[in-house]
């Protein structure tokens, strides 16, 4: 049996009401990232390497709200959150409110591998970045013209984040999950947060068990959607608890997202992979850009129930 058959990678580019003008770029973006991540698995790389590579690709893509293309907080600054987790050891690295770094997912990994801590925030996270030679990127290089215009518009009319209809607001956090040929699972999630958020607002993305979780005994999850709702139900960990109870990845995801909708009126999405290679991409928002690679087939979708396949280019 070819062990590489079990390697799977899934990515998402955010669960929200993605407007038509961003649809193609979002789908192209997740497809490219999925292929990038899968190529790491194909050449024998670990699931951790693969999810980092996939998320870096998404961070570099300005169409998504992570790294390049991040949203601005209420002070007009960029604050980034990210997490990675290794399902084999439960090792984890996270950064919250780190400023002006191109690839927060890699910084999160460095926290995991180069410190005895799991999470660094704010100035401390930036100091750590500097200490390991990670360059700072000026705000105007990270933020698009589109984002700056939208931010200015919103500042004039809105003073905060609307609770209702929260799926209407951009939630294009990015993330990836993977299982490699050794059966190790990993997850990664990265975001610029909500446009016009309060300074120092931390959402679900860097919080272990909420924005992501990975455990070789059950699987790996990366979440997107209304951050505060995801936190209140610890969505990633909730999905895995259902899997631990014997549910399929799809049912576990559906049940958990339904619970989030019922209990705290929050909408979102999740990608999941199990150690045996089962995977799912599920969402309760209007759309979620996602892509997965398995057995040299590329799957992707945007609208509910959409699942298109393509043979992976060699």
């Amino acid at each position, binding site marked *: 049996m070819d062990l590489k058959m079990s390697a799977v990678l899934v990515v998402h580019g955010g669960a929200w009401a993605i407007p038509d003008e961003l649809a193609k770029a979002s789908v192209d973006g997740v497809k490219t990232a999925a292929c990038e991540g899968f190529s790491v698995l194909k050449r024998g790389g670990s699931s951790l390497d693969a999810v980092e590579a996939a998320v870096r690709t998404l961070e570099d893509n300005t169409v998504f709200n992570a790294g390049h293309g991040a949203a601005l907080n209420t002070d007009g600054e960029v604050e980034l959150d990210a997490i990675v987790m290794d399902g084999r050891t439960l090792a984890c690295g996270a950064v*919250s409110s780190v400023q002006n770094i191109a690839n927060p997912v890699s910084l999160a990994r460095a926290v995991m591998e180069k410190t005895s801590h799991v999470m660094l925030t704010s100035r401390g996270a930036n100091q750590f970045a500097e200490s390991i030679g990670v360059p700072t990127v000026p705000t105007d290089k990270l933020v698009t013209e589109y984002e700056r215009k939208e931010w200015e518009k919103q500042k004039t009319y809105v003073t*905060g984040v609307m609770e209702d209809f929260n799926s209407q607001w951009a939630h294009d956090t990015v993330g990836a999950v993977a299982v490699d040929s050794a059966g190790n699972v990993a997850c990664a999630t990265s975001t610029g947060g909500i446009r016009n958020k309060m300074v120092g*607002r931390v959402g679900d993305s860097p919080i272990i*068990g909420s924005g992501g979780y990975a455990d070789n005994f059950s699987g790996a999850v990366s979440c997107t959607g209304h951050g505060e709702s995801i936190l209140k139900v610890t969505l990633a*960990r909730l999905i895995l608890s259902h899997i631990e109870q014997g549910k399929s990845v799809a049912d576990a995801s559906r049940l958990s997202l339904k619970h989030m909708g019922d209990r705290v009126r929050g909408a979102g999405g999740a990608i999941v992979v199990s150690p045996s290679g089962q995977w799912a991409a599920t969402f309760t928002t209007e759309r979620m850009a996602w892509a997965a690679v398995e057995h040299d087939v590329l799957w992707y979708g945007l609208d509910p129930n959409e699942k298109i396949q393509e043979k992976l280019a060699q």
Partner: protein
Amino acid sequence: MCQSRVNSLEVPDMLPVVVVHGGAGHIPKERSEKSTEGVCSAVRAGYAVLKRGGSSMDAVVEAVAQLENNPAFNAGCGSVLNMKGEVEMDTIVMDGKTLGSGAVSAVRNIANPVCLARLVMDKTSHTCLTAEGANKFAQSMGVPEVPMESLITEYARMRWRKNLAADAKPVECQMGKMGTVGAVAVDSEGNVACATSTGGMLNKMEGRVGDTPCIGSGGYADNQTGAVSTTGHGEAIMKVTLARLILFHMEQGQSAEAASDLGLAYMKSRVEALGGVVTVDPQGHWAARFSSKQMSWAAAQKDTLHYGLYTGEHFTQSIDEPL
């Protein structure tokens, strides 16, 4: 005249109940008396809130605020120092009725981070604010800033200095010598809540955030299942999302005590770390369990004070009697 004589001796209800902890680890003997006094005093304060009809959230915030003010604990005043010799605090509160939550991480110069965390929950549409953003918010709420010096004790400074030595082993040395604080409660209406507050890990990197302000790790509360507040090795608690894990076990039918032990045992075997928890279910069953050598804890229920420090200890007395 016919009068039926009814025995009016009522058995007090299981509710309300409040349980607090003052940190799990290895508390030096000379500090253990202050630790026990502190948790007993805090639990009395929390219980008084509940008895006069206050909510479980009011009770846990009151108890934890008292522990923050008490220099014997690693929270608020008495917080451990980061590697630069500064105080950065992490806190969470959670309301089991709505799953509402408020947290602050790496906040400075605030006397009662637990009150600030509650304001995040009550006054913003967010659940967590960090560092300068948390301080900006405090300012906007009229929460006074206090000089960092007012939060630093001689003991904390001494521990910090010791750990600067090249051969010091901060992770081993800091374990619970000074404890994170926390509380869980159920009020008369059956609403559960939790609160946890800490200065974090001794000599931690600047900006290091532990389990405490991370929902599901430092604490979790859900009216359908119960509430948990944790203490111990922060990074390990995060890796197993200890609070949420214990509540998963309770959802599957385990008692508060059994679920707590299962969670702690898992943390010990999977990531080789020790800790402690206080746990309560909506019916008022509670547990104070720890895999470390000690955890100072106290509970109040049915006008009875319970407390302990070493494994197996469980003292009880009337809540109104002095210790």
